[in-house]
């Protein structure tokens, strides 16, 4: 063999290799091509259906007052289907909404997984008995329920389901059998009750909520009763937010023992899929990349207009923004920094510049848009609004630590935390400083309580009162806290999660302010799992964390002293206060909303007084969205993707 043939051989092999790779890519994309054709045919079918849907919508709207419950006094409003008043008359069906999510749980069983994506998909695919009216959150309007009756003592809820609601048809992930649509009946709610009562099913977060439920029992095929053990303030919202659990899906084999069933609930392949009775069904799921929901055409209620909802996994916000500009995604949540610094160009238009007027602004904008009077050259709309569940942040102090046992010290530490600067520098003033554990538009906030001022001198005076003074001239405060006759310097460590940039920034700012007052703060960034470990064992001094506020709070888990000494409890700071206990218990028992408001406002005042946390701020939702969507409205509860639509010309 001479050199030339050797060289040729090498080149040949290379060409072959390159070409085969190219071929591979081609085949790969070709298979996608066929899939896309199939999708297109489906789209055409949907377009045909959407006409029918439109007619049906109009029918439904006119129907509403007639089909109400036999006892009209029970349902506050004569609505057959929740939030139908917000459905636009001229909406067209069709189109795809693509949105970015930062990560996806690999498990769609919302009983065993409580991740936010799991619950997002679940709520799109499964209906609850009733939901809150978007503008008047205190009013519940029926979805899956036809009507409900509450006994006079507030203990027994009798619920009649709508007839004709069906589970999505599906192909079983285990047996590969095709299962047709089955009707949703009272049995599916009883099955839910059985499942959360099976102690081997790890669904404690949900179980704790239903601890006070005595039983859920079937009356007839479409009627069941929920019986509460004692009067409970949250009984109504919790009963009405019940969702059915498909027995034929999760427990298809009647011969399974309870523990066998529990094991299946944890590791079965069925958790990789999901069936519900809601307006969308899970169509395709490419793990780690995308998830597609399609509109369920056999849906019993008012169908949403968008026929396909796609979630793409894009963890980095900056990559999401690039994709949004390119049109790769339609919708994303912005970080405050992106809102201020990266979405300033003409491509973007701010629809709701102010959180106070967001609702009115969005209504006005909708009107302009429908009349075609909006500026033409923008691509993306920006909204800021407060949603039902607002995250709020705090620095928590372990009350078992001798330093933080003193109320003066906690108050001084709050006064040394420059929350205004934190808000401005880190959140670009998106959000609000908070003074207690309730946030947003919660009625339980006492409007007379304002956050403590940033006041280093006052704080130092307070600390002096408690005996913290610089006695050895090293510029660091000290005090004898363990009673050994020697003064210990004021030094503690603050736990922060190592992935959280906001926590790191808050930590850095606080650290430098405390140092000026003579307090040494060490930051401890640790991994999330180790972080939780420390909270569970209460082996920490202070930490930065956040809670998500709800409309109907029950402070019991986080603030009651019965939870203080438990390991792994939400009251990880061991907060104990008899007065707080009394208020919490009474508020829990009182169904009367006025009394409950008084009690919880008193509780709010008490926590502000005690400062077990340094309450920092709550976040607001910042959203950027492609302009082709119509009926984007900000409601009291936030924005609702089930009510938006796309004109066919813009698809």
């Amino acid at each position, binding site marked *: 063999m001479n*050199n030339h043939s050797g060289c040729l051989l090498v080149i040949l092999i*290379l060409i072959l*290799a390159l070409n085969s790779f*190219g071929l591979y*890519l*081609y085949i*790969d*994309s070709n298979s*996608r091509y066929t899939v896309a*054709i199939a999708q297109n045919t489906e789209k055409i079918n949907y377009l045909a259906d959407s006409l029918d849907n439109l007619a049906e919508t109009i029918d439904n709207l006119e129907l509403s007052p007639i089909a109400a419950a036999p006892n009209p006094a029970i349902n506050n409003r004569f609505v057959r289907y929740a939030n139908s008043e917000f459905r636009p008359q001229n909406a067209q069906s069709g189109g795809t909404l693509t949105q970015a999510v930062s990560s996806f*749980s*690999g*498990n769609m069983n919302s009983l*065993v*997984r409580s*991740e*936010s994506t799991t619950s997002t998909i679940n709520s799109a695919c499964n209906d609850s008995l009733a939901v809150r009216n978007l503008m008047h959150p205190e009013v519940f309007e029926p979805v899956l329920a036809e009507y409900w009756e509450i006994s006079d003592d507030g203990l027994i809820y009798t619920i009649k389901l709508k007839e004709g609601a069906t589970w999505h048809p599906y192909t079983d992930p285990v047996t590969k059998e095709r299962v047709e649509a089955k009707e949703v009946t009272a049995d599916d709610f009883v099955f839910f009750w059985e499942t959360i009562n099976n*102690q081997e099913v*790890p669904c*404690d*977060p949900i179980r*704790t*909520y239903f601890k006070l439920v005595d039983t859920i029992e079937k009356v007839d095929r479409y009627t069941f009763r929920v019986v509460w053990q004692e009067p409970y303030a949250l009984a109504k919202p919790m009963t009405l937010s019940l969702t059915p659990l498909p027995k034929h899906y999760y427990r298809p084999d009647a011969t399974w023992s309870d523990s066998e069933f529990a*094991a299946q609930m*944890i*590791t079965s*392949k069925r958790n*990789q899929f999901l069936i519900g009775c809601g307006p969308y069904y899970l169509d395709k799921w490419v*793990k*780690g990349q995308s998830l597609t929901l399609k509109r369920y055409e056999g849906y019993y209620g008012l169908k949403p207009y968008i026929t396909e909802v796609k979630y793409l996994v*894009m963890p*980095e916000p900056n*990559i999401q923004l*690039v994709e949004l*500009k*390119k049109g790769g995604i339609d919708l994303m949540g912005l970080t405050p920094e992106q809102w201020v610094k990266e979405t300033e160009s003409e491509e973007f238009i701010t629809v709701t510049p102010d959180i106070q007027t967001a609702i009115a602004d969005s209504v006005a904008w909708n009107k302009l848009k429908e009349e075609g009077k909006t500026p033409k050259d923008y691509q993306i709309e920006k909204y800021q609004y407060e949603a039902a569940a607002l995250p709020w*942040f705090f620095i928590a102090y372990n009350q078992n630590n001798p330093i933080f046992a003193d109320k003066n010290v906690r108050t001084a530490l709050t006064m040394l935390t420059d929350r205004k600067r934190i808000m401005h520098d880190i959140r670009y003033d998106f959000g609000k400083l908070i003074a207690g554990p309730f946030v947003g538009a919660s009625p339980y906030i006492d409007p007379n309580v304002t956050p403590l001022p940033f006041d280093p001198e006052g704080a130092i005076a307070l600390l002096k009162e408690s005996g913290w003074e610089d006695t050895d001239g090293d510029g660091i405060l000290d005090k004898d806290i363990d009673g050994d006759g020697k003064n210990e310097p004021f030094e503690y460590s603050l736990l*922060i*999660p190592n*992935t*959280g*940039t*906001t*926590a790191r920034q808050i930590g850095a700012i606080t650290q430098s302010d405390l140092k000026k007052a003579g307090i040494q703060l060490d930051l401890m960034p640790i*991994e*999330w*799992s*180790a*972080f*939780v*470990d*420390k909270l*569970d064992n209460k082996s920490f001094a202070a930490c930065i*964390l*956040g*809670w*998500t506020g709800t409309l109907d709070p029950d402070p019991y*888990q*986080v603030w009651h002293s019965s939870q203080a000494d438990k390991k792994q409890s*939400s009251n990880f700071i061991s907060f104990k206060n008899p007065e707080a206990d009394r208020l919490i218990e009474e508020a829990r028992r009182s169904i009367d909303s006025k009394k409950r408001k008084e009690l919880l406002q008193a509780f709010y005042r008490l926590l502000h007084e005690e400062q077990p946390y340094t309450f920092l701020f709550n976040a607001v939702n910042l959203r950027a969205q492609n302009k082709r969507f119509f009926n984007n409205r900000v409601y009291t509860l936030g924005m609702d993707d089930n009510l938006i639509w796309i004109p066919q010309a813009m698809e």
Partner: protein
Amino acid sequence: MLPTLILITLLSYMMMRFAPGDPIKSNMLSSSDTPAQIQEGESEAAKQFRKHFGLDKPWYVGYWYWLTGNPNIPGSKGIIRGDFGISITVNLGTPVAELIKERLPPTIKLNLISIVIMYLVAIPIGIYSAIFKDSIFDRTSSIIFFMLYSLPSFWIALLAIIVISKYLPWWPTSNLDPSIPLTESYWNVLLITARHYVLPIICLAYGSFTFLSRFTRSTMLEVIKQDYIRTARAKGLSNKKVIFKHALRNSVIPLITTSSSLLPALIVGSVFIEFIFRIPGMGMLSFEAISSRDYPLLMTTAGITAALTLLGILISDITYGVVDPRISLDK
């Protein structure tokens, strides 16, 4: 080899179990990018999970379960019967084998191409600089390669993203599998896909040029000094012929043996590159597994890495033996 492997897996398992935090907790509470938000009311559920996955038992029992199968999980057979177990946190309930099957293709695609490019670029340059030792080309290429070697790949990746999204906004900076429009032709499909590969491959490849080209250069120099080359030269063969017929062939052999050390890199993937370009590959999988303490998944990825490294060492030993008769294996 087998005892080493067992020792490694045993040690990994032990370290993992003693490290603070456990999969159940990271499972129960989801972390987020802003200060973590806990959901209320997570308390006793952990116990059931723990029992199910055998984590209530001491670590050696857990390791035994991993080897031979967990009696609590139906269908669990243990690693010795080829069952990698079931993921706890990354994707609760999914068999680890399935997860790996999902994540392997992007990593292999990327690494294979970048290894090919590495060899294609580095070896000719190495040979050339050996032939013209101390020439300007030799010196400058050496300096440039060392500078490349000193550029942290994650930094270059970030800079690339900054520059590209500013000046070439249509150029893809994340994800390997684009959604290709329906009507594209063969060449367009190729082009679009290739664009997605360019950045990650460059970032993966450039750092390794240095090692390979310097290695080629030094083996080549060594070969050139050998007697038989001198003899060939003395025979009056042309310089070109000597180099390509005699020297090249002999210096390529050590290069082939070094390629076995690339074996683990092929499968394991680069955490940084996958992290920045958002490629759902093996590197990200192991990072997720470590940070959420997904023991079964972690054991599998760690085990695979260890096994491949061992295999690489073994292969290079064997090929050395084959190539160089002075080294005998039965010593």
